[in-house]
C-alpha cells in the first residue's frame, strides 16, 4: 500500500515538473497565435492548413515579424476530436495566453470551442465551413471558408440555367456533408428545385455502386449533387460513370483538391462544382483582383511542400493574413483587433474578397465562388 502512495507522489511530482515550461513560456515577449488543426484522424484537412501556417509564420518572422513583434505559432493536433479541441483551446488561451486561435478544421470542433472563445474573449478564426459557426454571430468568432449556402446557391443557379429541376443529393457522413445536405434541402425550394432522393454514405465507403443503382432506378433524376470532403466522393462519380449513367454531376467546393480528381480519373471529367479561385489561379484573367495573391500562395506552397495547394490551406492563409492585417492596423490589442476585423473591407484573400460587418463574420458572398469543371484531369473555369 505504501508503494501506491509513493507512486502517486512521484506522478504528482512529474506533473509539477511539466508546469515549469508553461511558466517560462508565459513570460516571453512575442505574439502567440494558436492553431487547433485536425492534422491526423479521420478528417485530416489540417495538413495543408498546418503547412500554410508554418510557411506564413516563417515568412513573417523573416521579414521582422508583426509591427516588430516576433510571431510564435503553436499548432495542436486535435485529430478532429472535439474533447481534445476543448482541452487544447483552454490550454492555448490560459497557459499560452495566445492572442488568437486559428482553426479548428472541422465544424464540430469549432462549435465546441465557440463558447470558450466567447467567454475568454479570444479571437477565433475558424477554417471550418459550417454556417452555424457565424450564424448567429458570436462576437469573437470568425470564419474564412465560403458559406455553404452560397455554394448551394451557385449550383442551383447553374441548374436553373440548365433547366434541371429534379435532383438527387448524396453526402458523406462528416460535418461538412451533413451541413451541405441541410443547406441543399433548405434552399432548393427558392430555386424551384425538387430533391427527389437524399442519401448519406460512410466516409470510409469503398464502393457505392449499390447506391448508384438506387439513384439510377429513379428515372426522374436529372442531376446528382454530391457533397463531401472524403475520398468516397471520387468513388461515387466513378460508380455513376461505370454504370453508364450519363447524368450531370455537381460537386461541392469540397471537390477542390486535385487528388480527388486524380482518384476519380476519367470519371471526373465534366463534373461541375463551385470553388474558390485558387484552383484556377493560373488561368484567371490578369485583371482579377485575386490573381496576384493566389498565384503567389500557390507557387510558394507548391515549391515548399512539393504538393498541390488546396483550398483548405487557403482558408488558413486567409485567417492568418486577416489577423496580421488587423494587428498591423491597430496594434496588439485584442479588442481593437476584433473590431478591426469586424470592419475590414476589401481584403483580398484566397477564398475571395472579404468584406466583414458586425453581422457578417464571414465576409464572403456569392462572388467568392466560380463554377468550375474538370477537363483533361485539370480544373478549369466552367463555361457553358
Amino acid at each position, binding site marked *: 500500500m505504501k*508503494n501506491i502512495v509513493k507512486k502517486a507522489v512521484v506522478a504528482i511530482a512529474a506533473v509539477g515538473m*511539466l508546469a515549469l515550461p508553461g511558466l517560462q513560456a508565459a513570460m516571453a515577449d512575442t505574439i502567440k497565435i494558436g492553431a487547433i488543426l485536425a492534422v491526423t484522424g479521420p478528417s485530416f484537412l489540417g495538413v495543408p492548413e498546418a503547412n500554410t501556417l508554418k510557411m506564413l509564420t516563417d515568412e513573417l518572422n523573416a521579414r521582422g515579424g508583426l509591427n516588430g513583434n516576433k510571431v510564435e505559432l503553436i499548432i495542436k493536433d486535435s485529430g478532429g476530436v472535439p474533447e481534445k479541441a476543448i482541452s487544447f483551446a*483552454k490550454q492555448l488561451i*490560459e497557459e499560452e495566453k495566445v492572442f488568437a486561435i486559428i482553426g479548428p478544421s472541422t465544424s464540430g470542433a469549432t462549435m*465546441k470551442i465557440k463558447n470558450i472563445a466567447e467567454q475568454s474573449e479570444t479571437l477565433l478564426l475558424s477554417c471550418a465551413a459550417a454556417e452555424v459557426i457565424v450564424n448567429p454571430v458570436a462576437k469573437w468568432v470568425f470564419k474564412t471558408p465560403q458559406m455553404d449556402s452560397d455554394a448551394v446557391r451557385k449550383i442551383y443557379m447553374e441548374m436553373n440555367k440548365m433547366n434541371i429541376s429534379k435532383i438527387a443529393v448524396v453526402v458523406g457522413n462528416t460535418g461538412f456533408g451533413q451541413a451541405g445536405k441541410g443547406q441543399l434541402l433548405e434552399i432548393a425550394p427558392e430555386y424551384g428545385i425538387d430533391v427527389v432522393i437524399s442519401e448519406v454514405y460512410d466516409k470510409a465507403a469503398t464502393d457505392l455502386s449499390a447506391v448508384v443503382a438506387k439513384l439510377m432506378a429513379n428515372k426522374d433524376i436529372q442531376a446528382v449533387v454530391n457533397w463531401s470532403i472524403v475520398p468516397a466522393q471520387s468513388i461515387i462519380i466513378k460508380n455513376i460513370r461505370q454504370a453508364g449513367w450519363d447524368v450531370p454531376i455537381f460537386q461541392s467546393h469540397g471537390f477542390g483538391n486535385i487528388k480527388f480528381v486524380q482518384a476519380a480519373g476519367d470519371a471526373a471529367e465534366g463534373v461541375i462544382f463551385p470553388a474558390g479561385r485558387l484552383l484556377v489561379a493560373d488561368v484567371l484573367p490578369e485583371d482579377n483582383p485575386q490573381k496576384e495573391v493566389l498565384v503567389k500562395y500557390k507557387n510558394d506552397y507548391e515549391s515548399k511542400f512539393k504538393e498541390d495547394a488546396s483550398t483548405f490551406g487557403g482558408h488558413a492563409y486567409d485567417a492568418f493574413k486577416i489577423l496580421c492585417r488587423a494587428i498591423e492596423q491597430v496594434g496588439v490589442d485584442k479588442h481593437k483587433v476584433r473590431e478591426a476585423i469586424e470592419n475590414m473591407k476589401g481584403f483580398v484573400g484566397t477564398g475571395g474578397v472579404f468584406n466583414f460587418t458586425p453581422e457578417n463574420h464571414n465576409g464572403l458572398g456569392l462572388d467568392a465562388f466560380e463554377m468550375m469543371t474538370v477537363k483533361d484531369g485539370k480544373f478549369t473555369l466552367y463555361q457553358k
Partner: protein
Amino acid sequence: MEFIKRYLPIAGLLGIVIGVQLLTSATDTAYYLTQLTMAAYYSLLIIGLCVLMGYAGQISLGHAGFFAIGGYLSAALTSNDFSAYRETAVMRFMDTAGLLLHRQSLYGEPLLNIQPWPACIIAVVVAIIIAFLLGIPVLKLKGHYLAMATLGFGIIIFRVALAAEFFGEADGISEVPPFQLFPGVSVTGDFSDRVQNYYIAWGLLLLGLVLLLNLIHSRVGRALRSIHGSEEASEAIGVNTARYKLYTFVISAAFAAIAGSFLTHYNGGIGPSEAGVMKSVRYVAIVAVGGMANLWGVLIMGILLNFMSLRGMFGTYDDAVFGVILILIMLFAPQGILSLRIRNIFRTKRNDT
C-alpha cells in the same frame, strides 16, 4: 486493521488531490486542473471497466458506447429544443414537476430543455437498461466472440450518433448548459468554476473508487475473482456466474454513463468520436497498462495517460503511442506496468537480505 488498510491510501489520494489544487493555485498554474478534471472523468469509466475486465474477466471493446449514451442523452435532453412538444402530456407533466428548464440561447432565442438532473438520471438509467438487455446474451459469449460482440455494440452506438439528427450527426452537440448539482455548485467548463469542478470530478472519482474497492473486497468481489479463475468451479460453489457477470457489466456501464454525462456538461458538448472504436480500445489499453486486476494501478495510469493525451503531449502520435504502449505492456508486462517495478523492487530487496 482491514479498514485502515483499505481506506488509508484513499485518504492519501485525497490529500494529494487537495495538495495539487493548492499547489497549482499558489503557483498560478491552475490551468492544469482543466485536464486533470477531464482525466478524472475518463478514469471513472476506466476503473469501472477495470472491475469488469480484471475482476470479472470479461473484455468489453464497446465501453465508449456507454460513455456516449450517458453523454449524448444528457447533452441532447438538456440542449435540444423541445418547444415543439410543449403541449404534449409528457412535457406538461414534466413542467409541473419542475423538470423542465426554460432558458434563452446565447443569441436570445427561447429554449425549452429538460433539467440536467433528470436528464442525467434518464441517461444513466437508459445506459443501465441497455447494458442489462445487451449483457444477457453477450456475456454468454467468450473470447473473440465477446470481444467482437461488444465491439459491434460500440459501432452501432457510433453509427447512431453519427446518423441521428437528434444527436447532431457528425458535428455532435454543442452548447450544453451547466449541470447544477446544488445551488451554487455546477458542472461547467467556465473558467471561473474550475477549482470547484476539479473537486466535483475528483470527488466523484474517489467515491467511485471507494465503492469499487469495497465491492472487490466483499463477498461479491471474491465471487467475481472466482469467476475469472474458473467459471466451472465458481458455479460449483453456488456462484450465479451469469448474474454476477451481468451485474458487473451493468455497474461498469453505469460508471461509464455517469462519466459521460458529467464530462459532457463540463466540456459543454460531445461529438461522435467519443463513441468511436479507438476510444474503446484506448480504455482497454489503459486498463491493460494499469494491470487488469489492479484498481490502483489502473487509476494511476488512467489519470496519467489521459492527462498527457489531453495536453497534446503525444502530438500527432497520439493513437500510435497507445498502440505501442498496448503492445509493449502485453508482451513484456501482462500484469501491468506497475507489476514490473514492484517485482524488481522486491527482487533487489530480497537479494539484499
